[in-house]
Every structure is written in C-alpha cells, then in structure tokens.
C-alpha cells in the first residue's frame, strides 16, 4: 500500500515522457470544463423544489403548509420555491449553505424527523436555525426579491408603511424580526421577542 502511494507520487512528480505539453494543457482544460460544469449542474439539481420535496419530510410538512400562503399562490403568479428563501444566491454563500445541508442528509438517513410528531418536536429548533441565519445576513433571501429601495410606502397599509419607514429603514429591525412564519406554520413561540 505504502509502495503504491510512493510510486504514484513519483509518477506525478516526473515530467511527462509521452504526451506533448499542448495535449496535456488542452486536455486538462477540457476536463476542467467538464468537471466544473458537471459539478455546478449537480449543485443546481439539488437547488430545485423537486429535489427538496423528493423527501417526504419536506413534502408532507413544510411544503404542504406553504401551499396556503402568499408565497405559493397570489394575484401576480410570482412564487418562491424552497431554495429562493433557504439557499443564498451568491456562489460562496451557497457552497457554505450546501455544506451545512449535509447534516440534513444525515437527518434523512437516520429519520430524525420522519414522522409528523418528530417534526413538530423539532420545529422550534429548526425554525430558530432559519431565524438566526436570516437575522445574521440581514434577511438576504427576502431582499433578493423584496428590495427596500423600491418599496412604495403609499401603496402599503398605514401600519406597514409606518413600521417599514421607521424600524426597517434605520436598520433597527430586519425582515425576519417581524415576518416570522410567513411561509410555514409557527412553533410554540413562548419567549420569542415580539410574540
């Protein structure tokens, strides 16, 4: 075993004896494109709603609950899918989130929330994860669609325009501070600020 590793390392260190430099560079470049393209394609496949709700934990709990909300069905037909709110759009943040999500694969394999009862028991913790994430990135995923600069306060109700032009405008609050449970049902909110 040790000999094989040493042999491999020595081969890698030696200059190429048979192939031209051009073939190696071009071949390496093409292989790079294929690998990179394949990686990103696979990444995007995991970034679709079909992929998320291929697990029954997601389909029977959170997806069912979302169907009644305004982010699923509304007058203009624009709708948010799971990754729109739960995965950052910027590449580096997305990779970081995807690495965290490997824990969700673990949960799926070991059935951490594979019944409704187990899911409800974990709901507060799961919700807190998302609240913490959105609080830390100043509700980045909300702001991918809802841009404060283009909000027309005159079109908002009096209460909404008051809150948005004061607490939200001066950065005292971020979207998630008030808009909790807008796409899924809420856990027991005992002790949560503002509830």
């Amino acid at each position, binding site marked *: 075993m040790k000999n094989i590793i040493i042999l491999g390392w020595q081969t890698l260190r030696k200059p190429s004896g048979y192939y031209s430099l051009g073939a190696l560079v071009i071949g390496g470049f093409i292989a790079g494109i294929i690998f990179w393209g394949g990686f990103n394609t696979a990444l995007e496949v995991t970034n679709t709603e079909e992929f998320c709700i291929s697990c029954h934990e997601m389909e029977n709990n959170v997806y069912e609950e979302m169907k009644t909300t305004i982010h699923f069905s509304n007058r203009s037909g624009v709708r948010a899918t799971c990754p729109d709110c739960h995965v950052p759009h910027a590449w580096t943040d997305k990779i970081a989130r995807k690495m965290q999500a490997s824990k969700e694969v673990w949960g799926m394999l070991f059935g951490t929330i594979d019944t409704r009862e187990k899911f409800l028991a974990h709901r507060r913790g799961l919700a807190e994860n998302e609240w913490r994430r959105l609080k830390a990135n100043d509700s980045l995923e909300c702001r991918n669609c809802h841009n404060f600069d283009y909000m027309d306060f005159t079109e908002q109700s*009096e209460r909404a325009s008051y809150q948005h032009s004061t607490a939200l405008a001066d950065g005292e609050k971020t979207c998630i501070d008030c808009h909790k*449970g807008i796409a899924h049902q*809420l*856990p027991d*909110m005992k002790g949560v600020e*503002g509830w």
Partner: protein
Amino acid sequence: MKKLNLAVITSLLVLAVSPVMYSLSANATDKETVNSVATLRDATPIDVQKEPNRIPQVVNKDIKKARNYPMQPPVIPHTIRSYEVNKNNNKCMSCHSRHRTEKSQAPMVSVTHYMDRDGNFLAEMSPRRYFCNQCHVTQLDAEPLVENTFTDMHSLMNDKSKAKKH
C-alpha cells in the same frame, strides 16, 4: 231535504279545499322567509350550480368602526391573512396584548379578556377569550346580501321621545 244536501255538499267542498288553501297560504309565508336566504343564489334552479360571486376584499383601512350596540365586539379594521391563533401562539396578541400596545399603538384587549366567567382576574388571558375570531371579525368591502333592519337603542329612544312631543 234539498237544503240539507246543499249544506252537506258545501261543507264537504270546504273540507276538500281547505288543505289546498292552507298549503297555499303556508307556501306564501315560506317563500317570504326562504326568499331572504334565496337571494344568495338569486333564484338559480336547484339543479344548477350557481356561478360564484367575486370574493370581496377585506377592509384594511385601520380606521375604527362604531359599534352598533355597547356590548358589540369591535370589528377588525385590517386584514388578518395567515395570522395564526392556536395553542402555539396568538398573532393578534403580538400587538393587542397589554405589554405590546406601547410599541404597536394598537388598542389593548379589554380587561374583560383577563377575567374568568365569575369575574375573577387572571394573570393571563382567559382561555374562553383566547380565540379572537370567535367574536372579532374582519369586514368585507361588499354590499350586504340581505337588508339589515337592526335599530340600536339610542335611535329607538330618540324616535320614542320625538313621537311623544308630537
């Protein structure tokens, strides 16, 4: 003898006709009461599915409405779409509870909500008052389907005192 026959015939006739007359008059009164409900279907035949009316918008003006009588639960002047009121949380109370009103400037739920049915004060909202929508409802921007003839006490008393003066 002939007179007796005539009397028998007329009485029989009356007997025979009276159920018909009775059912006719019953139908008439039924129609009056049924009609007030039938306006929802606008006389659509029973075997036809009526084209549903447009769903009206919820009034969202945040302006308090007058109460029609002193004990009326105030109506909600804003939308409450996806406000959860269940054993986990009560969204209404995140503005209308005692300790949230300073921030929200919303009216506080009245003290009666903190009383049990014997009038004893509780630290928390009374369970029988917890589900806001049992009494408080939003209003729709729509014409009433049935005319409302409710008259409140003040108008009644005013009318009475006016009538006395005349």
